């Protein structure tokens, strides 16, 4: 294992972990419920580690990405239902990320939001056109490491560490009213959805094929998923904990992503603010690219087209046209004037509804000896995989009622 490759892989996973939904929900979770939802972030991160590792392993051993084999497993009809559902969920998510990038550029420059949406879409599309896959992933992942500012800022504001640690223990705060309990339940579902977004499995699995992974890369896959996602999750938890310390006591439940950046401005002033905004910019920008590519991968793989950014755009022309059209569609949604924070809510909702359909074929494939040979799911993988499948299925069933009853977590 090349230590440099491994380090870069981990750092990319760290910097690429947080997206606009996690930013928003981590901030609100902290201000509304203090440290009580930290354990849900940890719990969900273990889930994405399990499925991330599985999707990388399927790519490395079966040499086919999840969506190719998904259609084979589910058949044409159910496969098309899954494809359409995940396209809708990922497109809404992509639009939310594009809107998020535009908002962050607005905070950095005070340039008009709609203009920034057009400019940022053009820049993101240009980087997808010019850069090969590895450099797209590395550039946004490593630049996303500016998000470490939030972890440093948390230490600087001296939170009550014993209470932060207490948040690791699964519990609900005592004395909640029925309405607050429903809100807490909605936040649990929303965090599971935000951390385990379907596009992550599609992107990670296809990325493994793009980078020509084989069985020799399995250790790196495992370490990237566990260490990389684990450290990335700490950044989201830092946002939550800072919000609990700074915002909860003063009636702030961050309504704008820009408010989250105040967590770094409070201890470090302008330099903290700018570093935090840069971290958010690249993390959310990277997520915009990942969601767009995940959708293009899904379409191309479902219909057997050439795909991948390891090829030049003209070598996979239908795939190229697909991601261009999808990015423009995401921009189109933003240009209708819809509030990107509303899109975040819908992205969370649609994604959790699609999650069981996403992870079921992956579980079946990773447990199939005819594809995976000696790298098939062991006892631990099977147990954790089916456990988290049950969790996302339960979350999917509860999501819509909770969304309606709590007005999307607004109480």
């Amino acid at each position, binding site marked *: 294992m090349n230590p440099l490759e491994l380090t870069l892989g981990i750092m990319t996973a760290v910097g690429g972990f947080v997206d606009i939904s996690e930013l928003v929900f981590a901030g609100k979770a902290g201000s509304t419920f203090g440290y009580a939802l930290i354990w849900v972030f940890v719990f969900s991160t273990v889930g994405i580690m399990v499925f991330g590792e599985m999707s990388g392993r399927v790519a490395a051993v*079966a*040499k*086919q990405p999840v969506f*190719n*084999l998904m*259609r*084979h497993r589910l*058949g*044409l*009809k159910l*496969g*098309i239902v899954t494809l359409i559902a995940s396209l809708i969920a990922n497109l809404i998510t992509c639009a939310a990320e594009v809107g998020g990038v535009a908002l962050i550029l607005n905070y950095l420059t005070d340039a008009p939001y709609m203009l920034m949406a057009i400019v940022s879409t053009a820049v993101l599309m240009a980087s997808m*056109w*010019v*850069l*090969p896959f590895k*450099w797209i992933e590395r550039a946004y992942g490593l630049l996303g490491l500016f998000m470490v500012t939030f972890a440093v800022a948390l230490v600087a504001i001296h939170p009550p560490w014993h209470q932060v640690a207490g948040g690791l223990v699964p519990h609900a705060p005592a004395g909640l009213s029925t309405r607050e309990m429903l809100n807490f339940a909605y936040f649990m579902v929303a965090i599971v959805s935000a951390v385990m977004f379907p596009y992550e499995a599609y992107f990670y699995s296809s990325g493994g094929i793009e980078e020509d992974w084989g069985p020799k890369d399995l250790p790196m896959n495992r370490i990237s998923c566990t260490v990389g996602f684990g450290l990335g999750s700490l950044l989201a938890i830092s946002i939550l904990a800072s919000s609990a310390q700074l915002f909860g006591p003063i009636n702030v439940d961050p309504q704008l992503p820009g408010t989250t950046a105040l967590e770094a401005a409070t201890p470090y002033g302008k330099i903290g603010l700018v570093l935090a905004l840069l971290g958010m910019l690249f993390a959310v920008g990277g997520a915009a690219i990942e969601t767009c590519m995940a959708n293009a991968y899904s379409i*191309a*793989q*479902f*219909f*057997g*087209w*050439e*795909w991948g950014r390891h090829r*030049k*755009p*003209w070598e996979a*022309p*239908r795939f*190229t*046209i697909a991601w261009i059209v999808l990015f423009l569609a995401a921009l189109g949604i933003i240009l209708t004037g819809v509030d990107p924070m509303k899109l975040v809510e819908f992205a969370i909702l649609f994604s959790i509804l699609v999650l069981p359909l996403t992870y079921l074929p992956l579980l079946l494939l990773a447990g199939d000896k005819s*594809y995976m040979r000696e790298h098939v799911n062991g006892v631990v993988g099977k147990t954790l995989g089916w456990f988290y499948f049950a969790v996302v299925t339960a979350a999917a069933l509860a999501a819509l009622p909770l969304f309606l009853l709590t007005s999307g977590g607004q109480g």
Partner: protein
Amino acid sequence: MKPSAPIKLVGQLLDLPIIDRDGNYSGIVDDIELTGSAGKETRIAALLVGPGAYRGRMPKWAMWLVRKLAGDRITRVPIGEFASIDSAVHLKGSADRLGLHRSEDAARAWIPRKGAM
């Protein structure tokens, strides 16, 4: 697995990706053409690739939509063209020779060949 061996049509063949000898993705096994009849040996004659092959696998209204969006062409890949079958169907020859890259080639005309690393 060799193409001449017994095979589970749904579990091991239908909806698999097709990859040609140069490693290019060349469609999905959308349907299978069989020879034989009741009481006689059944053999795979060819794979059918293309939106037209969805007929019989989707409800009529969905097939109408498919036809409007993507047409109803079918490309036939005879069994003699298969090299092996595992997580994909691997072809002996190039996809171009079998007419499996027509749509890809048509789309290529729209993509400028510059600027990418």
